[in-house]
């Protein structure tokens, strides 16, 4: 039981600058897409036309929606390009399989089962690795969502062009899937992801690592004992040590994070209102 304020806190890098910037654009575009798209999906709700008019009417909201879509597609492509570069150029196959990979592995099932047992007091907390099972779900949900929502969105963006190749009823399906999958994504990110990543008591009000890129050594050891032990044993902690986040980064992160959480939760409230009214 040491008093942490008296020892020098060591900070370990978790996300590099590019990842954080990409996540920033991901947040911006996702919030933008959700805010400009939900009024259409819930067009019967009294708030829908208010929100649509706040974006300057449905045509202007539609233009913004496409603009945010371009940003999100760019984020996605940049991310995929960075992954490919790591695999092909750096021969970093560890991201494809293994403890630090975000690809689901058998141990994730075991972790999940143990996590549930921990919830009910029947097992110790799992020794999570670099990415926990719920983080992997978050990540692949976005991948899946990009394919489904992005693909259907592009179909609907250029219907005359795609009608050269596909029958018109595919637009019916694309329109339905675009909206339902968007509802899933919005509902998931603004409730489950917010809770898992930020709002649960241990993290409340938010986990700053996505804004600062670093995590304290103690937090890493507590949160991801599997990763911490692996890094410590192989002597990889020291290369990852970083400066403490600046007060400026901290403030900006809090501001951006709070804004995102407020906007997201507001949208959730509006959606719930539209669903139950």
């Amino acid at each position, binding site marked *: *039981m*040491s*008093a*942490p*304020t008296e020892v020098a*806190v060591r900070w370990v890098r978790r996300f590099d600058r590019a990842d954080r910037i990409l996540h920033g654009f991901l947040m911006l575009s996702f919030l933008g897409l959700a805010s400009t798209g939900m009024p*259409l*999906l819930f*067009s*019967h709700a009294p708030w*829908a036309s208010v929100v*649509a*008019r706040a974006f300057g*009417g*449905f*045509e202007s909201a539609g233009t913004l929606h496409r603009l945010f879509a371009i940003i999100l597609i760019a984020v996605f492509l940049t991310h995929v390009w960075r992954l490919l570069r790591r695999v092909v150029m750096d021969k970093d196959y560890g991201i494809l399989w293994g403890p630090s990979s975000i690809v689901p592995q058998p141990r994730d099932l075991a972790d999940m089962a143990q*996590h*549930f047992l*921990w*919830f*009910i*007091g029947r097992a*110790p907390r799992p020794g999570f690795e670099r990415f926990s099972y719920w983080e992997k779900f978050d990540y692949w949900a976005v991948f899946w969502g990009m394919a489904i929502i992005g693909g259907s969105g592009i179909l*609907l963006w250029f*219907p*005359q062009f795609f*009608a*050269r190749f596909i*029958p*018109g*009823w595919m*637009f*019916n*399906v694309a329109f*339905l*899937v675009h909206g*339902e*999958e968007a*509802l*899933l994504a919005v*509902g*998931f990110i603004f409730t*489950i992801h917010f*809770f*898992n990543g930020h709002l*649960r*008591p*241990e993290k*409340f009000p938010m986990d700053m690592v996505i804004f600062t890129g670093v995590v*304290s050594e*103690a*937090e890493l*050891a*507590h*949160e991801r004992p599997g990763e911490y032990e692996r890094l410590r044993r192989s002597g990889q902690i020291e290369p990852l040590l970083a400066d*403490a*986040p*600046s*007060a400026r980064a*901290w403030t900006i992160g809090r501001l951006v994070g709070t804004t995102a959480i407020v906007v997201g939760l507001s949208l959730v409230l509006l959606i719930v209102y539209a669903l139950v009214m």
Partner: protein
Amino acid sequence: MGHRVVAYAVVVWALALALPVRALPSTAAAAPGAAQAAAQAAPANADCLICHEDASAARADGRPVVVTPGVFEKSIHGILSCVDCHTDLATNVEFPHPEKLARVDCATCHSEAVEKYREGVHAQARASGSASAAACVDCHGMHDILPSSDSQSSTYHLNIAATCSRCHGDPALTTQAGISGEVAAAFADSIHGRALSRSGLTVAPTCSDCHGAHDVFGPDDPRSRVSTAHVPTTCGTCHEGIATKFNAGIHGAVLAKGNTGAPACQTCHTAHAIQRADSTAWQLSVIGQCGTCHADRVATFRDTFHGQVTNLGFRTVAGCADCHGAHEILPASDPRSPISPGRLVETCGRCHQRANENFVKFDPHADKHDRTGSPVLYYAARTMQLLLAGVFTFFGLHTTLWFSKEIRVRRARRATGPRPAPVVPQVTGEESGEAAGAEEARDERAD
């Protein structure tokens, strides 16, 4: 001397038939001899005015009985004698006469109008005991009646709406009579009402143009000009081109077959609150009107981009009439219909340039609940439903359990030991970043 002969003949004829038909008063006035022959003591107007000119003239109960000579003389009846209408005072009456006089019978002269009136809803209401239903004088006035061509007349075209509104815009009266109290205000704000009141258009219709003047019937009465079956003809009096189109369409055809469940003009345009058909608000609201009969079609429409954007209050996408037409609506099986298969490329192409045969296979009314009609959409919808339900159920449970666990961990920690100092940069201690301190194992035993 022709007057005298005519008057004499008429009087004799009238008396002989014992009908309440009097000699034309003007003729009588011009022939005092004949008048005297008919009624020895008929008082002249001047005699009546001795009392009735007095501004304070009133009945015992205080109701005034003043007849202002200037007003009466200027009225269309100004050339008549008082006793031409108040016939029971024409003979052998001592003055002052009793308060209770016989009711003036306008039919004496205006038999045709009164005959129509008697069939109408106002007279029927009076007959069944309503004292407030309109009688002749309620619309035309009494001693001040002006011809309807006179702009001061209560029955002048531009004044009729105000005249009818005296009763039909009176909340107490309409409530008591059990009739709509909204028609007057609705009409005043309608395109017709504004054309009359703001633009002073005498060609714009007023109440009597649709309802009739004397033979007014309720809308459910098949004789009524505003009964569903008759509305297209009534509106077609002015809107002839539209009525022709309407009658050629499916709604008009069904209506003509006697199916009064079919819509007529007022079903979509409303009866009194008719708005400009080119206003965005009206064009959007009429979608709901289509939905009163075609509820399933509007429901599936609302599932599409067209339906959602119009629902948001924007008009730049297709509403019902943009594809189906407005008055000349025809079923898709009719090759003239804009939604007939042969014309879809043209119809969709009006908004979607370069729309091709593939493009028009889009179903603007696809029903995601219809497994046989739109199977791919149906299974896509079911899959998405299951996916959403599955994800939110699983993570809802996950989150709930996790939350309660962390709450318990926190409580136990507060109870057993000091709170670990938060780890934040600059060690300010202000931020609540919840670092774990060195107690890696604290939660394992926290329960």
